[in-house]
């Protein structure tokens, strides 16, 4: 993976020292809360319901062993023994004290971690495919380009005070595991007819109270021109994006009001003014970054491991885990392993100290020291020998991390909701747990197959409910928690915004309603259809009738 150079390290040290000074001035009363708040937010520190929350940036969701161990140490030393992985591939700690925050930033900086770009109206952490560098599906390694964007965007003076936050995702496979189409900018690597590398540039996607699917404004941007083109997009947005109304300040509103064609035209006009020799990444720098992502240590192995096949045949639990959590690696004899943070009684995305330590140990022993975070709040060990899978499975199971449910009904995205978040209207975590509890039968869950349920505790949609096959939005109805269900959303390459099923229901009714939706699907599905496919074929009516049958 990429290692920070002297410039990066100096920047983190300076930043940490600066924040220590700012905190001291706040505690001494030299700064008011109004003056201090934007400063702490620039360092990922929010004040939530019960305590401060520190959001730590995980660039494109990639961690090494030392970093995971450091996160575990922070969880134990400064929090309540756990951390919460987010839909932006970051981790956040929910019980932080302001007075400890400078020490935590120092501890993070020692392992090249920080909280920059996790808050504020800047270009946020660039997210990418958690299988980067391991999947044969990818056209190029998206981490190379994500890292280039990181270096370009971090503390970018022109783009540090945008009208609103700005999120970029980079995907490189036909299967989109980054939700690129619901980002401010989604970049999809493409190979041109002449074999050169480029990006499809999608702009103006987003969720929140006004969801949009991103629109393509450039079918093929030569990859070498990426940074100048991003500069042009950001410049048009920075100039024309609304600053008078926080709810209309995202780029999606600008793209929607101008139309994608006109927005694209303005970007082209701006782009033509930019000196590419200044703005674009030099080939030498690109080569330097690329070299950092060449995976060392991959052995030449036979495509099939006999010991692994024998273990799989002998152990049904291992076989189930492999069916659901293990995917093909580009190198023969290796596998990509998804580690679910969605045990039925767990809080989606939470990992405790023992689990983080175990992940670090297992990645060190079996995974070439590489750990990824997914936007679906799970972890990935991208380089595991097939022959090590049985031992890895045992190691994961020992700490409750071998739940075989990736992409299944209980693999639910849920924001922290009203249990923690100052913005939330309703809880999300207990709803996720009630659904997981209802679908405890692993055979039935596998029978149902891919079903993406996503829950947000408010319209800001951190839980991605708009793009859930079944989306669940917590609302406040005269002060009580109610939940609005949507169907037919997708954050993948077939992106779409879900449609509202009907009137809101209370918390106790959500899991039974999901059960009824699943029963309709099972009765109606044809062939290999997923829930989403069946919904798209038969429409809302049968599902609606099943859920609201008692209302008639």
């Amino acid at each position, binding site marked *: 993976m990429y290692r920070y150079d002297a410039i990066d390290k100096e920047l983190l040290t300076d930043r940490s020292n600066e924040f220590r000074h700012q905190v001291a001035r706040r505690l001494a009363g030299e700064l008011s809360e109004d003056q201090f708040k934007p400063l702490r937010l620039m360092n990922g520190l929010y004040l939530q319901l*019960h*305590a401060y929350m520190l959001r730590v940036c995980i660039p494109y969701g990639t961690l090494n062993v030392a970093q995971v161990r450091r996160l575990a140490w922070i969880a134990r030393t400064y929090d309540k023994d756990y951390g919460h992985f987010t839909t932006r591939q970051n981790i956040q700690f929910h019980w932080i004290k302001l007075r400890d925050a400078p020490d935590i930033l120092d501890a993070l900086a020692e392992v090249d971690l920080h909280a920059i770009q996790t808050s504020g109206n800047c270009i946020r952490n660039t997210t990418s495919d958690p299988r980067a560098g391991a999947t044969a599906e990818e056209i190029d390694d998206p981490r190379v380009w994500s890292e280039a964007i990181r270096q370009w965007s971090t503390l970018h003076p022109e783009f540090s005070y945008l009208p609103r936050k700005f999120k970029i995702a980079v995907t490189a496979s036909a299967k989109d595991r980054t939700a690129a189409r619901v980002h401010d900018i989604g970049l999809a690597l493409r190979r041109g007819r002449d074999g050169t590398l480029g990006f499809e540039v999608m702009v103006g996607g987003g969720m929140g109270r006004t969801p949009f699917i991103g629109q393509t404004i450039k079918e093929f941007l030569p990859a070498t021109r990426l940074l100048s083109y991003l500069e042009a997009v950001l410049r048009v947005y920075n100039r024309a994006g609304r600053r008078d109304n926080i709810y209309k300040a995202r780029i999606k509103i600008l793209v929607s009001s101008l139309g994608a064609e006109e927005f694209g035209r303005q970007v082209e006009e701006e782009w033509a003014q930019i000196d590419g020799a200044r703005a674009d990444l030099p080939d030498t720098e690109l080569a330097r970054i690329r070299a950092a992502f060449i995976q060392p240590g991959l052995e030449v192995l036979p495509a099939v491991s006999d010991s692994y096949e024998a273990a799989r045949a002998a152990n049904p639990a291992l076989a189930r885990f492999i069916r659901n959590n293990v995917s093909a690696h580009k190198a023969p004899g290796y596998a990509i392993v998804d580690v679910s943070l969605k045990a039925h009684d767990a809080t989606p995305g939470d990992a405790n100290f023992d689990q983080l330590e175990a992940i670090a140990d297992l990645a060190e022993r079996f995974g070439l020291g590489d750990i990824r975070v997914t936007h679906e709040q799970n972890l990935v060990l991208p380089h595991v020998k097939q022959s090590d899978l049985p031992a890895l499975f045992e190691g994961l199971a020992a700490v409750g991390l071998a739940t075989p449910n990736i992409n299944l009904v209980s693999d639910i995205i849920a924001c922290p909701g009203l249990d923690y978040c100052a913005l939330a209207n309703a809880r999300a975590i*207990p709803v996720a747990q009630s659904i997981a509890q209802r679908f405890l039968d692993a055979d039935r869950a596998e029978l149902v197959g891919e079903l993406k349920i996503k829950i947000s505790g408010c319209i800001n949609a951190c839980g991605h409910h708009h793009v859930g096959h079944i989306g669940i939005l917590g609302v406040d109805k005269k*002060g009580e928690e109610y939940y609005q269900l949507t169907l037919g959303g997708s954050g993948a390459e077939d992106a779409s915004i879900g449609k509202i099923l009907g009137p809101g229901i209370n918390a106790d009714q959500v899991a039974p309603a999901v059960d009824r939706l699943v029963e309709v699907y099972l009765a109606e599905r044809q062939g290999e259809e997923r829930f989403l496919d069946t919904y798209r074929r038969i429409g809302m009516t049968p599902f609606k009738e099943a859920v609201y049958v008692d209302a008639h």
Partner: protein
Amino acid sequence: MALTANRLSEGDVVFWASGQWVDQFAEAELFTEEATAEAAVALAKAQNRVVVDAYLIDVTRSEQGLAPVSYRERLRALGPTNELGHGKQALGGAAITALQAASGAARSTGRLDLIRRK
């Protein structure tokens, strides 16, 4: 009504009680007069180095005892429902049980005032 805030240095939820900040809702001072409550808010706001985001919350008495009217404020007074060992609820006891047993929900009026003021 009661007056609540978060402690600046720790972020903990606190309640006003006769010129001091206390950790438990059960120890909070209750205001029946608007003027007394607003006077306490003014004092709290002057304590810029001690607390942030001070605001008044509505309180109701039921068979179980006193509790904030709004569900959000009961959560603040207790802790998260997914980890019953975390937050103030870990203390246990009759006052916590009363808060947990309280039902009915409403928006946090004080919170809305806070947003409006901002």
